[in-house]
């Protein structure tokens, strides 16, 4: 776990301190962001993940300066940038629609930021050439932006935002307009750009898969709140709340009762009466009834007569090539899905309609806060 993130966190590039954003006033008031605080480390690929309307874009716009917080501070390397207009903030944005200037060539677009900063011509020229090389667009430098493809426009938008060497790069769902194959390519490209430039990236997306593959850390947002911040592993394996578990990947929710606790771990009793170990969210020590989650691939099928943690009837078997999903109806009436990887010649042991037991690994169960 935590393979890609240094265990000793560096200094923070951005610190969002108790920021709140309310649109409108009086009756028509809409709270876009409840009071949120989050720190984004230097050189990190940080993702704000959540469904539309969760406040992720609002938070990004507050960092960019297109909107100003109702309350709170946004610290960029220790300096509060919240009251500054966008043109005074050393952060740049890659827009969802790219927002390339149609009356300028590719090279002029990339050089725009440096030009506005009043850099000398020779420096701009060198830097634009460097950027064109970085995004592999040298051949199209003099094209109009309307004469290049969507994927190429995306690269130009990236180069334009990276050219002034911002302290933080903000990306607002930049891949959503691309088709699947191009999106996959750009995901890898973005990771490469981030590691080559060493710039802190803040990436907004509603695509959980995108977030898991690209990020060093993810903040999961819902209804104007940040629910959990962690590495992709943390978020996937140790979701703290129901929303997080549900939003990312497939999950089984089970009712259980806490019967014992020792340093961050609990023993919970399932509806079957079997007791299994489970992890607890940091700083959370519940008692009594709780909900636990178990990912479908962290459980295994066993014969019905085995000493299984749970047992039920196999209602459906869905073959998906790489693996098979077994949809079970547990004895207490709840649904449960087990995912098993397929291997040739392994044969499928469990037939539809038969009884089966479920084995739960010692580190598979996670207790939720809600």
């Amino acid at each position, binding site marked *: 776990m935590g393979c890609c993130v240094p265990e000793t966190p560096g200094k923070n590039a951005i610190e969002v301190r108790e920021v709140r954003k309310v649109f409108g006033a009086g009756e028509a008031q809409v709270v876009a962001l409840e009071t949120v605080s989050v720190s984004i480390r230097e050189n990190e690929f940080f993702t704000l993940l959540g469904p539309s309307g969760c406040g992720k874009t609002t938070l990004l716009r507050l960092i960019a300066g297109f909107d100003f917080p109702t309350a709170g501070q946004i610290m960029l390397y220790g300096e509060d940038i919240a009251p500054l207009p966008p043109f005074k903030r050393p952060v740049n944005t890659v827009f969802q629609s790219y927002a390339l*200037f149609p009356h300028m060539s590719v090279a002029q677009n990339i050089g725009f930021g440096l030009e506005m900063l009043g850099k000398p011509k020779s420096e701009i020229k060198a830097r634009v050439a460097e950027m064109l090389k970085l995004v592999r667009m040298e051949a199209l430098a003099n094209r109009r932006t309307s004469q290049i493809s969507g994927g190429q426009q995306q690269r130009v938008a990236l180069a334009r935002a990276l050219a002034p060497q911002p302290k933080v790069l903000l990306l607002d769902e930049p891949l959503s307009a691309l088709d699947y194959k191009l999106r996959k390519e750009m995901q890898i490209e973005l990771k490469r750009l981030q590691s080559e430039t060493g710039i802190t990236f803040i990436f907004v997306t509603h695509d959980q898969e995108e977030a898991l593959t690209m990020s060093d850390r993810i903040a999961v947002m819902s209804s104007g709140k940040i629910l959990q911040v962690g590495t992709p592993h943390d978020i996937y394996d140790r979701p703290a709340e129901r929303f997080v578990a549900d939003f990312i990947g497939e999950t089984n929710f089970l009712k259980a009762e806490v019967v014992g606790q020792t340093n961050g771990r609990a023993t919970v009793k399932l509806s079957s009466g079997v007791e299994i170990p489970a992890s607890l969210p940091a700083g959370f020590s519940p008692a009594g009834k709780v909900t636990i989650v178990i990912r479908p691939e962290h459980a295994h099928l066993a014969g019905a007569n085995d000493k299984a943690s749970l047992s039920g009837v196999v209602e459906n078997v869905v073959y998906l090539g790489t693996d098979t999903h077994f949809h079970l109806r547990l004895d207490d009436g709840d649904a449960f899905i087990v995912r098993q990887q397929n291997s040739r010649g392994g044969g499928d042991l469990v037939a539809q309609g038969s009884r089966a037991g479920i084995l739960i690994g010692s580190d598979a169960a996670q207790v939720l806060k809600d």
Partner: protein
Amino acid sequence: MARRTFDIRAQPGFGFMALLTFFALYLPIAALVAYSFNAAESLSRWDGLSLRWFASAWNNSTVQDAAIRSLVLAVWAATLATIVATMAALATTRTRPYPGLTFKYAFINQPLMVPEIVTAVALLIVFSRIKVWTGYSGMGYLILAHTAFCIPFAYLPIRGRLEDMDLTMERAAADLYATPWKTFRYVTLPLLRPAIIAGFMLAFVISLDDVVITEFVKSGGQDTLPTYMLGQLRRETSPEINAIATVFLALSVLLVTVFFFVNRRKT
């Protein structure tokens, strides 16, 4: 049935109505153009093709004088109106909607709603007072009056373009360290250029064409081409007027065509 039932062109009498409308619109103009090439002195006789009335109008110093005045006036009025209209369009689109914004639209477009003759009389009264107080009776009054009624014609295409224009362009410029002025100068203005040219040309044509307000506001010796033509018609109908009208028509068609192409190229 092969034809779609609700196709308006399938209705009985459609062709007839269309022809009638075309004739009503274009027959008088066609007649005017035809007569401008008539060699005869009188409108009632056809003496064969000739350019003599064009030559005669061209050499008439009063016509020259009025034509130059018309052009100078139109350039001034269209330029001022376009500047004001651009500022007004920016002020009414680059802002959050607020109560009273619709009222402002109406306010800017007032010349489209108030009958021209009312404005003309009002200006006559006000300007004659000012003339007495200041002693100034130059072209300024005409330029002001024309600018005022040209503003909505310049304003509408510019506002239309600004409303279509994605605000993220300006946001992107600000994000890339452009101050509000530089954003306007390097992003908004270039993107707005076709609409500004279109607005200018519309305003130009409208100013060139005006009779009512000009007639009321002008001082002695300030005839524009349209008021000169009106004055001539009051006395006797000279075929020169036909020739001038034909040139006017050609100029307007040219400007409208250019307007069309300038606007189309952008989309």
